[in-house]
């Protein structure tokens, strides 16, 4: 009883302040956890590889991979592969995303266009673009164009589908508002359909980005003589395992970087969410 009374004397503000500090601490702890897991894995890998618990020929210690990375960077070989892959990804990405947004908006806004095009899209979507690579090479040759087209093809579908869904899911009332206030079709397109579908559309772009990376590596493995995918494949075939890991780490790095960039773009483009 005595103790209980003493408790109630504590300043409520002080108590809340302590609670707040506790929450801050927990938050920081969670942030720490996020960066702990990759560091932990790398350390474990290093340890197991150094002690011979895993075969260092297949899983060389991370420090040696970093060394190889450094050497390849210095020789300039790495920049060549990275540069060409990035070029293919960006060019293909833009070539896929821009028409996908345009066609998706038109399909979302005008149901006849939607009815006309959706069977084509539904039928083509399940075919992996990589399976079409032979046809793409026949059409566009073995050069850069065919790789860019392959990427564009695989990015196109998730973006077009999400854009259509984005437009269709715009609350009817906003269309009524636009109509009631006399919006012409251009304003309907740019003031209502485009911004209204943007949140769902950008989810599709995020998906497309992941697929683009996936596709470029596979395409470069199949038919190219440069790029990160080519680096991984030829290193493996020549049993240059450290070089192969450099390629893998690069893919992981760029994938993560692109995701973060798109998340940043999302918050920039959607201040109203």
């Amino acid at each position, binding site marked *: 009883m005595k103790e209980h009374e003493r408790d109630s004397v504590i300043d409520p503000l002080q108590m809340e302040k302590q609670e707040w500090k506790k929450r801050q601490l927990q938050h920081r702890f969670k942030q720490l956890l996020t960066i702990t897991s990759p560091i932990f894995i790398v350390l474990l890998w290093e340890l197991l590889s150094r002690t011979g618990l895993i075969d260092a020929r297949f899983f060389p210690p991370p420090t040696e991979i970093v060394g190889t990375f450094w050497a390849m960077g210095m020789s300039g070989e790495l920049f060549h592969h990275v540069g060409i892959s990035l070029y293919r990804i960006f060019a293909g990405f833009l070539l896929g995303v821009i028409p996908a947004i345009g066609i998706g908006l038109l399909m979302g806004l005008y149901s006849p266009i939607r009815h006309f095009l959706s069977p084509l899209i539904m039928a083509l979507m399940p075919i992996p673009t990589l399976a079409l690579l032979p046809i793409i090479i026949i059409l566009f040759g073995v050069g850069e164009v065919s790789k860019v087209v392959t990427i564009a093809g695989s990015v196109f579908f998730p973006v077009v589908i999400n854009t259509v869904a984005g437009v269709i899911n715009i609350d009817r009332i906003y269309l009524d508002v636009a109509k009631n*206030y006399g919006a*012409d079709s251009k304003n309907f397109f740019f*003031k209502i359909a485009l911004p209204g579908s943007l949140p769902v559309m950008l989810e599709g772009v995020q998906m497309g980005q992941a697929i683009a990376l996936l596709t470029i590596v596979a395409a470069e493995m199949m038919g190219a003589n440069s790029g990160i995918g080519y680096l991984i494949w030829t290193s493996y075939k020549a049993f240059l395992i450290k070089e192969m890991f450099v390629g893998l780490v690069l893919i992981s790095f760029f994938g993560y970087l692109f995701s973060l960039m798109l998340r940043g773009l999302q918050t920039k483009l959607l201040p*109203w969410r």
Partner: protein
Amino acid sequence: MGTKIAIKDLTKVFYKKESRVTALEGISLDIADGEFVCLVGPSGCGKTTLLRILADLEKPSGGTFTIAKSKKERPLQSMVFQERGVIPWLTVEGNVSFGLKMRHLPEDVIKERTAYYLEKVGLDRFANLYPKELSGGMKQRVSIARAFANDPEILLMDEPFGALDEQNKFILQEELLNIWSETKKTVLFITHSIDEALLLSDRILLMSSQPGTIINEKHIDLPRPRNMEQVRADPSMAEYFVEIWNHLQDEVQRSRN
């Protein structure tokens, strides 16, 4: 004063494979220039349908209506939608100027009129905020400012205060009356709140449901400017309240049987 809205034999039937619903049947109605008319009826009586037809968002199945035009460049009507009608990806300013921009008015006219009505509804400090940062009452101020800024021949209001709490509702009702008394626009206002109708209207139209018809009307000749206390204190208003209340009760009972 001349007739501003003339509605003749308006009928709307919603037809689907298995069912047909007569939302409106033979609505004939004249509304005078500058008149504030409230439509009161049970939910589902077709009052929103009537408003949507006048707003050109729905086509009537039969009958006609005309809205008298006084100036060539004026739009016929503007609607104040329910709370969700504020466009989330436009700022407060973007929403208020929406109609003016859609009509491609000169930039300086848009600026001036937007600023005027933002100030009128007390949102000038919030011009650059997005609707997600606004309370329900503030959103409806945006909606009202957007409609008045558009300077239409008539205003249509679809239960604009339906989602607000009592206090906010009173404040906004009086603000609306203030702006309205300045412009003297013709207003057709939907509500299911009897108090709201008594406070705002020159005339209250009572609707029955399915088929939606206008079965009675009440002229409210309480002097303006009005406030809620006056409405509450006036014995004839209390009488009206009970009459309308009974009517609504009957309608709800009838539609339940």
